[in-house]
């Protein structure tokens, strides 16, 4: 029983997708109006009904005050700079409530000092008038996310020291925040973050869905293709020293090549041997485990920052967004648009959809099924690599387990959209992205991925074929 893509089936669907793409492009092209810059102030701040304070105290790892560290605060009240005083304290008055991004300039830290948690810079604080919001930056040796070793080594009594966690799960993304009340500004802020996250997620899930559509394989190693993209970008920017754009392009090209090689070396021969789908599924899991530990073996269990500079934020109405995210959104939308055009309007794209619909019939009508599958693997892995590069920039760091953390969100997106439908994966990803970021408003941010997975289960309960899937193929 083959599943089918329903891309051509409903013009409404295509219209929806195009509208979504247009909306994303519109957001990218929207005016980039920076907020008014206020004069730098170092006076001590006292909150009253019309002002609020953002304050903090910086201490070196030895406990001494860190003097003269520059910080920048950006938010609805404009942009302000401040430096820490002789006692390590700094404070800034602001006259508008809302979310402020506090960025610490690492170059101005006292000699030998580093941030204990580089992923936490810049950090976002929520300010209400008449209140004081603290933005603390602990200094000391960086503690990257440690690996959940997953093994049964060390039969110790005490729990090991608190391990860090997972990229995107424990690090707050610039421009998002958790907790606090629900108001329209926050909803808009989280929705825009969700749109960016969903679009980047879509890059990865479209490949997953195409592979499932043409081969019937649920590829549990697709997350590692995403990690691979991020890690390659890290290698070429940080270790080789190439500019970001060049290294990103190389990373995507290498990721696509890895997809081609993977199909040539593993999946093609397995199809020839007629190895069953369940067996192949378990092989993808073995591959995922292998790749995860290969990444750890070479790059360690900590987080890897693709770029070290801090992204600049711009304000679009009530929304704060980093320039980097806007550019990423543009690149992702262009890539997804390209894939859509390819699938809908080119001969090879039509052949791909034919294979997806019914491989036997496609082969009978003269389509080279193996060639199409090889190409789908290449495109899928390339898109996942691009998603990994952009996601690594968006989450501020990449790591060996970035992809495996995102994999379940991809599956949720693909299932929500309808397994095997490329446009379903796109729509599903954006819904999942919105759910993940908007659920931040009501549940703690470290639980936000759980919300998306609950949706996955609910979809299977009520509409297992997904939004765009066909009912009859289930069961």
């Amino acid at each position, binding site marked *: 029983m083959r599943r089918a893509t329903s891309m051509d089936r409903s013009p409404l669907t295509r219209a929806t997708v195009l509208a979504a793409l247009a909306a994303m492009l519109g957001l990218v092209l929207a005016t980039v109006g920076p907020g008014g810059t206020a004069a730098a102030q170092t006076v001590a701040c006292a909150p009253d009904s019309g002002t609020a304070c953002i304050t903090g105290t910086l201490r070196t790892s030895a406990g001494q005050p860190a003097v003269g560290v520059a910080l920048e605060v950006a938010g609805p009240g404009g942009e302000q700079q401040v430096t820490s005083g002789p006692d390590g304290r700094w404070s800034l008055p602001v006259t508008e409530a809302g979310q402020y991004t506090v960025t610490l300039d690492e170059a101005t830290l006292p000699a030998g000092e580093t941030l204990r948690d580089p992923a936490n810079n810049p950090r976002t604080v929520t300010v209400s008038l008449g209140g004081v919001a603290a933005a603390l930056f602990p200094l000391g040796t960086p503690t990257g996310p440690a690996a959940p070793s997953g093994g049964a080594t060390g039969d110790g009594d005490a729990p090991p020291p608190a391990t860090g966690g997972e990229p995107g799960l424990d690090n707050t993304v610039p421009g998002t925040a958790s907790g606090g009340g629900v108001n329209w500004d926050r909803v808009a802020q989280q929705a825009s973050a969700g749109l960016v996250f969903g679009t980047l997620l879509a890059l990865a899930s479209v490949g997953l869905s195409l592979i499932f559509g043409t081969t019937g394989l649920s590829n549990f190693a697709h997350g590692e293709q995403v990690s691979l993209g991020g890690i390659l970008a890290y290698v070429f920017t940080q270790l080789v020293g190439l500019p970001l754009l060049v290294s990103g392009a190389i990373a995507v090209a290498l990721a696509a090549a890895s997809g081609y090689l993977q199909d040539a070396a593993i999946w093609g021969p397995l199809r020839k041997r007629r190895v069953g789908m369940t067996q192949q599924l378990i092989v993808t899991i073995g591959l995922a485990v292998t790749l995860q530990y290969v990444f750890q073996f070479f790059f360690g269990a900590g987080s890897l920052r693709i770029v070290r500079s801090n992204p600049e934020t711009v304000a679009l109405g009530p929304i704060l967004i980093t320039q980097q995210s806007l550019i990423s959104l543009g690149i992702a939308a262009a890539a997804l648009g390209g894939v859509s055009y390819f699938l809908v309007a080119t001969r090879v794209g039509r052949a791909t959809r034919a294979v997806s619909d019914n491989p036997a019939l496609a082969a009978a009508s003269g389509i080279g099924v193996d060639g199409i599958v090889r190409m789908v693997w290449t495109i899928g892995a390339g898109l996942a690599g691009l998603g990994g590069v952009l996601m690594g920039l968006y989450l501020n760091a990449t790591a060996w387990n970035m992809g495996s953390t995102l994999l379940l969100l991809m599956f949720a997106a693909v*299932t929500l959209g309808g397994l095997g439908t490329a446009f379903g994966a796109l729509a599903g990803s954006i819904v999942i992205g919105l759910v993940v970021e908007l659920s931040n408003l009501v549940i703690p941010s470290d639980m936000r991925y759980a919300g998306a997975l609950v949706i996955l289960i609910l979809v299977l309960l009520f509409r297992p074929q997904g939004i765009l899937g066909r009912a009859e193929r289930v069961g």
Partner: protein
Amino acid sequence: MDWERILTLVAGELFAPTTAAYALAAIGLNIHFGLTGLLNFGQAGFMLLGAYGFAVSTIAGYPIWLAVLVAVACSVIFALILGIPTLKLRGDYLAIVTIAAAEIVRIVGRSTALTDVTGASSGLRGDSYKATFQALSPLGDGSTALGPFSYSNSSSNSWWLRIVGWLLVALACVLVWRLLRSPWGRVLKGIREDEDAVRSLGKNVYSYKMQALVLGGVIGSIAGIIYVLPRAVQPDSMGRPMTFWVWTILLLGGAATVFGPVIGSMVFWAVLMLIKTVMREVVPSTVLRAEQIEQFGWIIVGVTLMLLVIFRPQGMLGDKKELAINVR
């Protein structure tokens, strides 16, 4: 190279509590996959729920039998929640949902919002929930050496835990052995081979699958208790990798066999220990750091899993003709 020390360490792994816990978990998975053909990729979720259920209720002051009952109840409810939406669908949906549900358990458990109950990502200290189990021990205090193996009698990684753990493994083996030969077990095997044929005989396939999912999950939750008794409840060490090791163990030993999971678990941990200790002796620390040797061990496990599934899906003890793993 100190072969005596290495061989002692390797032999110690053969009957370690962790090996028993993984064997139990693999027996539970065997009921899911080996007998019924269900693709459960969330066995670590059952184990983590069992561990949480036991530890949290013991800390709340419940007696041990009630704490175990709470753990079992948690896994039954979890199995029902997983089974209701997915058991009517194709096999790989169950795979996706179980792996997602296990992650939900882990993400919720490690969330800072539940720090008071679960201790968030740093987990629950072993000392806080071990007392009731150790109080049951008839072995008393002190430690005993048996040949080269010296462990404490009752506390933590003890002889008492080994005895209880392996007794449970033996009980579970007897259970599977009886089930394989019972009418109920034959229906399960029928579902694994051809669901529609069983349905045409008037059997309620959905209900049978659900019973298998619950039973395997309960065994998984008890495995979780055994797993955390010598250590701490740590959500991040009971994530997806744990599920994948359980699968490797089951496929290594042989699915749909009585002793496959037990042999698989023993071989898995002993060989892993052998590789790691030999590498630590042979490879200088300037070439590979200690954690790299650890990671190298897991890389070997991943590659083994791939090769096993492709070239010997029946494992060490299985019968290739009996087990046709495939999605229906």
